[in-house]
């Protein structure tokens, strides 16, 4: 959102490193292995989807990256260290404060940095107009629809121009029409902000449409089972959704997901 138009994102393989998970394990209560030996290199400008069956540790991976818990072993390293405001997060629920207006909700990351409202008012206004809510500054969350609440949540996540945005099934609770709309808008945003996103989803279609890297995970123990690249250039539009290439990619991703789930079944036997 800086005034100078950001440089376009270089193609995959030419991007600067941002974050690396090296052999990360996470064991809960000494018994439940949520993640085992997870490796992931995140580069600047990546749009990564974490795709996998329920319970494969997608949320756990995000929480580890967010610093909400520590890995049992292994390392999570940020290139150039991590600072306050490097992260934006969107949960499955909009997670807004019901007592605060839309603008005050988006102001939250700055408020916690101790910055006065006047100083960042413009940036809040810009974030809200980027998600199409320029007329709702003074509204309270209860006055908004589910999709609009999610937009507020996205505006809050990107208002600080974080280096990395984590999204944990943000659109899973929305209807399909709203979800498609938000998918398109999210790609627009990425185009404008050139941000890096890790996006957790259950949907093969969503992952192919949105991301340029799909990380397929398997469960019990949670780990990376395969990685696919989506070479379709951005910006992607509705045409991509109906193209043969899209169908083919969805098919491939779906196969990879089935392999991951098959592995899981063998492991259970």
């Amino acid at each position, binding site marked *: 959102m800086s005034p100078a138009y950001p440089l376009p994102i270089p193609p995959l393989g030419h991007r600067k490193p941002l974050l690396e998970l090296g052999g990360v394990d996470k064991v809960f209560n000494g018994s439940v292995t949520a993640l085992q030996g997870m490796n992931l290199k995140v580069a600047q400008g990546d749009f990564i989807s974490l795709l996998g069956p329920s319970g494969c540790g997608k949320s756990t991976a995000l929480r580890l990256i967010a610093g909400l818990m520590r890995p049992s072993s292994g390392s999570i390293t940020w290139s150039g260290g991590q600072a*306050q405001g490097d992260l934006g997060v969107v*949960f499955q629920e909009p997670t807004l*404060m019901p*007592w605060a207006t839309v603008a005050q909700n988006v102001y*939250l990351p700055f*408020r*916690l940095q101790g910055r006065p409202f006047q100083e960042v008012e413009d940036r809040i206004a810009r974030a809200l107009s980027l998600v199409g809510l320029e007329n709702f500054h003074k509204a*309270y969350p*209860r006055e908004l629809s589910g999709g609009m609440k999610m937009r507020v949540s996205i505006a809050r996540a990107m208002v600080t121009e974080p280096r990395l945005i984590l999204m944990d099934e943000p659109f899973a609770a929305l209807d399909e029409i709203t979800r498609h709309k938000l998918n398109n808008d999210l790609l627009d945003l990425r185009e404008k902000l050139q941000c890096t996103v890790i996006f957790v989803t259950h949907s093969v279609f969503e992952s192919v449409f949105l991301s340029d890297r799909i990380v397929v995970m398997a469960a019990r123990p949670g780990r990376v089972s395969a990685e696919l690249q989506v070479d379709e250039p951005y910006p992607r539009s509705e045409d991509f959704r109906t193209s043969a290439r899209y169908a083919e990619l969805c098919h491939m991703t779906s196969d990879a997901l089935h392999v991951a789930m098959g592995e899981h079944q063998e492991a259970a036997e």
Partner: protein
Amino acid sequence: MSAAPAKPILDEEEARLARARRIDRIGKWAMPALMLIVAVIVWDRIVVINEIPKYILPRPGLVVETLINDFGTLSASAVVTMQITLMALAVAVIGGVGLAVFFAQSRFFEMAFYPFAVILQVTPVVSIAPLIFIYVDNRLVGLLLCAWIVAFFPILSNTTLGLNSTDHNLRDLYRIYGATRWQRLRYLQLPTALPYFLGGLRIAGGLSLIGAVVAEYVAGTGGIGSGLAFRILEAGYRLNIARMFAALLLIAALGVVIFAATSLLSHLLLRKWHESAIKREI
């Protein structure tokens, strides 16, 4: 698209609903008022028909007459009772919220002190009050202490519950953004606790009046600066039953005023965002 005729249609069901709403609105006021009038008339008739002497049960008219004639003394006492009640409520709010915030800061603090609060709450104030008046010389402080003991617990327990009811995702979000303990309290926990606190306040308002009255009964005669409870005792000794009723009427009125005031405060603070204060449109 063909434009539909812009004629407002009030179908049968809607019309019935609208009528029901109108009746509801009137009934909300009319029914209690009507019942009150009926009750007073029945009371009056019972006294007249059974020829009950006024030193056992006065007619309602006599109660009102006494209230008007003795209004100087009674209203002065009402002011005293109201003062003690409000002061106790204020101390209960400060003490209850303060303690709740402490509890929210440290689980160990809560483990250590919550039992004391519970014991204080479950012991009837009538049984503690005589002890308090032995140890505390100042009558006002004694009364305050009694009323406070009764009133502070609902505020403490409700506010504690509220402070611990923050949304988990929001708490995670605050952690990710590096919020300090103070920021989390100020911007997340206190707003979350507000509806809970206001619920506690409504209960505590009534309880502090009860505490103030009970404490005065226990404290006994006090001479100057006596509240309504003392007036009731005094009138009872003189078999001035009408005056007892008049004082009782005033106490009830105080209770209603406190309840209405706390309800109004709650409505004003929550109407913008909390579900409890929002009227359903459908």
